[in-house]
Structure formats: C-alpha cells, structure tokens
C-alpha cells in the first residue's frame, strides 16, 4: 500500500500491517515517538492494534530540543 509518511509518499512492504510493524521497520519501536494517522493521535498501546490502510496520512513525531 501507499501512504503519506511525514509528508513523503512511501510504498510500504506487504509485511507491514500495523503501526507497530511500521515502527519496527524503521527501527524506532524503542524510541519515544507519537503516531498520528489521518488526524487521529494514537496512544502507545494502540500501536499494536491499529492497522494501516492505503492512502493513510501518517505523522510520526518526537521531542527535540526547544525553549
């Protein structure tokens, strides 16, 4: 499926089914990240149960230095 990931159009491999799979694919499953799909913010526990769909708009954010 094709998704918009942090503003970039990405073709996802077939084995990526859930948000948790996506985070593992990019090796960020251990990091402090927050995922938003089509404007809906997910809690950490929802990563495993949330399935991705074609044309999803996915935002993955984290904390960076700031004042």
């Amino acid at each position, binding site marked *: 499926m094709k998704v918009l990931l942090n503003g970039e159009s990405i073709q996802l491999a077939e084995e990526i089914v859930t948000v948790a799979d996506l985070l593992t694919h990019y090796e960020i499953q251990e990091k402090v990240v927050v995922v938003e799909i089509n404007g809906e913010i997910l809690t950490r526990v929802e990563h495993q149960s949330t399935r991705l769909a074609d044309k999803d708009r996915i935002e993955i954010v*984290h904390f960076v230095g700031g004042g």
Partner: protein
Amino acid sequence: MLKIGSLSFQSRLLLGTGKYPSYEIQKAAVEISEAEILTFAVRRMNIFEPSQPNFLEQLDTTKYTLLPNTAGAKTAAEAVRIAKLAKASGLCDMIKVEVIGCDKTLLPDPVETLKATEELVKEGFIVLPYTSDDVVLARKLQEAGCHAVMPGASPIGSGQGIINPVNLRFIIEQATVPVIVDAGIGSPADAAFAMELGADGVLLNTAVSAAKDPVKMAKAMSLAIEAGLLGFEAGRMEKKRYATASSPKEGMSIG
C-alpha cells in the same frame, strides 16, 4: 517551593533544551543548573535516519518534568494538536502554550493563546501559556484556568533582558497563579532582576546555550535566581535621592 498545578519543585529555573553546542555540554549544563523542568519542542521525526541522537534519550526522564511547547503553532487549533501529540507520549501532562503571531518579533498571538489555554485547561492539561507582558491578558489567562502565566521579558532569543519591569510587576501583583518570566533573559543579572520583581520562576534557553561557557552560565543562572528570590523575600531598601552615611557622625577622631 514552586507549585504549578499539582506539582511542586525546589528549583525555580526552567531550562530550555535547544541550540546547545553538543549533547555533552548540554547534559552538564542541565545537571549543574539543578533545573527540574526542561522544555522541549515537538517535531516530525526523521525516520529515514533513525540513528540520529536525541537529547531526550540521554536523559533520565524520571528525574525531570518535561514541559513540551507548542512552538510552530500559529493558531489555537494547531497548539491544541501539538499539546495532544506531546501528551500521547505518556511522559508529560504539562504544556507550554506558545502561539506565535509575528514571525519577525516572535511575539505571541494573544487571542489564539487565550483560546488554546481555555481548550487545554478543559482537556485536563497543566497549562503554562507564554504571553506578552500584558496584565489584562495575564488576568484573562488566569480566569481561563491556566496553572502559571509566563510573560516574556523581551523577544525570544534576543537576550535584551527585562525591558518593561513595570508591566511585569503589574502582572506579578495581580497574579493568582505562579508567574514565570519566559523569554528574553540574557544574563544572570536579568534572571535575578526577574526574581527581585517577585516572579516565581524564570524560563530561559539561549542565555545558557549561546553563552561562551554554557555550563558555567547554567550555574550562574541558578545562583542568580536563588539570590534574586532571597533579595525579594528580604525586601530591598527604599531608594533615596541623596546620600546617607553608613558610618556614625559622632566620635570622629579628626578635628
């Protein structure tokens, strides 16, 4: 003791985490500052380069209270979204509302700041709005239920210090929540001055991160805030136009 909402802190220095020369220097500066509240921004992750270091990962998050900001927001709706993203990390309930209304001065948009504050209070956040030094706006933010007001001393990152102490004092005198002077602090003297005016705390970033020696400056800020607080509590002397001798006039051995 600085009390914000249900939380209490020994330190009255809130430290920003942006623009340090290196993570090593930043870590040392944070430690020596004794700050307990650290601010962060929320940004898209560069997922295509996951090995990039991140300061938060090097931090014992159980030792600090994270204060994410809504920097980048230009509307209340954007600020509320960023706040919710931050909270979904599970690491924090506090949010620094920062809604910028002018790109050149980085001064806050008062209308959107108030709207975002109202919404986030309803959502159960501990809300600390960054605001201009406007006493009426500060009062309205309090009425909206914010947990601290954070008036700027001067424009963000400018290091101009406190350019309107009269307005800050007005805000402090009518405050029903802690007043944290946020933005524009340049030197330890500025931080001490803020505390001498009666502020409950000081939030700064660039004054430390852009110092030639950020670690030493972090220590200096910590001491200045303590000194300013003690000075405020002690109550300064009245200013007089003319001199008054400190030594007695009687018993002089001359003449």
